[in-house]
């Protein structure tokens, strides 16, 4: 069939628009690597990644404490958020009556729409004083960041796990019940294992989201550059390091922040690739 001119024009327009989305990714990647790459080559990757001291005024650029901080906060968020999220998805997929489902699902999706600065503000006003008062320490801490992030990753964890549970063939459930398993045994020993890859992907993507978050954690983490000794200690993450200092950084300092961005970029890319790999494998 011969295409009309209008069809050809439409098709090309969509192609150009689609390409612009991808080119944004390419541009950003190239930009970060051009800006931060030379710094890593001159300083040495090992000294940068494993350096313990971050003192731009003295020319010391070590981001190891921030990597540790990032990992601690993200794992903390996963530790709190993942069990809640998975239980929530099981509830939605298996137990909730339709009415409750129709309230719960949009409510959880709404969590994703709250601006992150609002989360940070709420954390600063409620979570931080709560921790300072009841658990001690400055309140601005890994724990505070983890709690805020745990809430922020819920929409990701809940929706992806729920989808993977709903997508299971109905015959799995019927087969298990027909063997005389209780509803809970069916969920626990058949449905959850069968949906494992989707649930793991949900966890991984949730952690990726937690690592990438900046604004909310700037406000509750305390941002001191030191290896934390407990979850009540303040830390700085890779994202917050860039967020705090980019405004006034210049020269080598600015390059170091871009280099921090490269490390962050690599971590997030690895995590997303991992999630994709897990979802596709079966």
């Amino acid at each position, binding site marked *: 069939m011969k295409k009309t001119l209008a069809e050809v024009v439409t098709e090309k327009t969509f192609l150009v628009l689609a390409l612009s989305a991808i080119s944004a990714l390419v541009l950003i990647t190239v930009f970060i690597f051009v800006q931060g790459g030379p710094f890593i080559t001159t300083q040495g990757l090992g000294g940068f990644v494993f350096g313990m001291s971050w003192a731009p005024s003295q020319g010391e650029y070590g981001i190891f404490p921030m990597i540790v901080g990032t990992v601690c906060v993200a794992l903390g968020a996963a530790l709190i958020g993942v069990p809640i999220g998975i239980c929530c998805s099981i509830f939605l997929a298996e137990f909730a009556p339709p009415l409750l489902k129709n309230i719960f699902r949009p409510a959880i999706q709404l969590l994703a729409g709250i601006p992150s600065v609002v989360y940070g503000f709420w954390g600063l006003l409620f979570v931080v004083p709560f921790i300072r008062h009841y658990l001690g320490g400055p309140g601005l801490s890994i724990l505070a960041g983890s709690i805020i992030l745990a809430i922020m990753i819920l929409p990701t964890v809940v929706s992806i796990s729920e989808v993977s549970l709903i997508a299971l*063939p109905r*015959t*799995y*459930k*019927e*087969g*298990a*019940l*027909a*063997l*005389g*398993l*209780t509803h809970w*045994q069916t969920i626990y*020993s*058949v449905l959850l*294992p*069968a949906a494992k890859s989707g649930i793991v992907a949900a966890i991984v993507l949730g952690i990726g989201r937690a690592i990438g978050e900046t604004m909310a954690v700037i406000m509750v983490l305390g941002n001191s550059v030191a290896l934390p000794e407990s979850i009540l200690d303040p830390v700085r993450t890779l994202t917050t390091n860039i967020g705090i200092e980019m405004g006034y950084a210049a020269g080598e300092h600015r390059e170091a922040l871009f280099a921090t961005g490269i490390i962050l970029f690599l971590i997030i890319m690895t995590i997303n690739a991992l999630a994709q790999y897990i979802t596709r494998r079966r």
Partner: protein
Amino acid sequence: MNEQPGSEQLSQAANKLEIEQINLFYGSFHALRDVSFTIAQQTITAIIGPSGCGKSSLLRLFNRMNDLIPTARVEGSIRLDGVPIYAPDADVIGLRKKVGMVFQKPNVFPMSIYDNIALGPKSHGLHHKGELQQIVERSLQQVALWDEVKDKLSSPSLNLAVEQQQRLCIARTLAVEPDVILMDESCSTLDPGAIARIEELMAELATKYTIIIVTHSMEQALRVSDMAAFMMFDDKKAGCLVEYAPTLQMFTNPKDQRTEDYITGRYG
């Protein structure tokens, strides 16, 4: 049918299932109307009839699978060994242990062959490794799958051929030690050779178990079943039981004109 040594001293003609005035509704839709018949133990009963006449719905009443459909409502009574299974205090889990089900398509769980079979007994509280191993071996031997899979019990069951998967599903059902086995068109996805082998297996199992099958194949009903139940729509589109008789008798000398029309291919 062979006598089964050591089993309960029930007479051969003992009734396994008594279905009395069963009416099934899905919401306002009347799916089954006034179905009554009695199934003797250690027989194979075939439920036949045109598509959508409620054969599967009827079969799913016997292990209360219709409970999964929120709008389903049952009136009348079904008794298994004299115990009403729709009584308010009925033990549904216990019922499903006694009445196993094999589905249309093999629905092996995405886990190892061993785990597929051990799942039932484990969930019912058996954790002794040796006993589980024995149950797995015995169940697989009962369906003639043991020799083919004994060296790969821990490999994923989804790697098996379709027929082997369906055998595994039967073995999984046997592992729970049921009395009754329901088979819902369980051969419809298999090739003729595999169908013949599964039918052979059914005949063997019928020496120990009461088997009820739903089938679209008249030939299959004739080959394997002792009794046949012919179902049809009534004038209000509700499924009802037209005739229930020994299979051979129904196929050679049907009592009802509708039965005759259907089995001679004049229906529709």
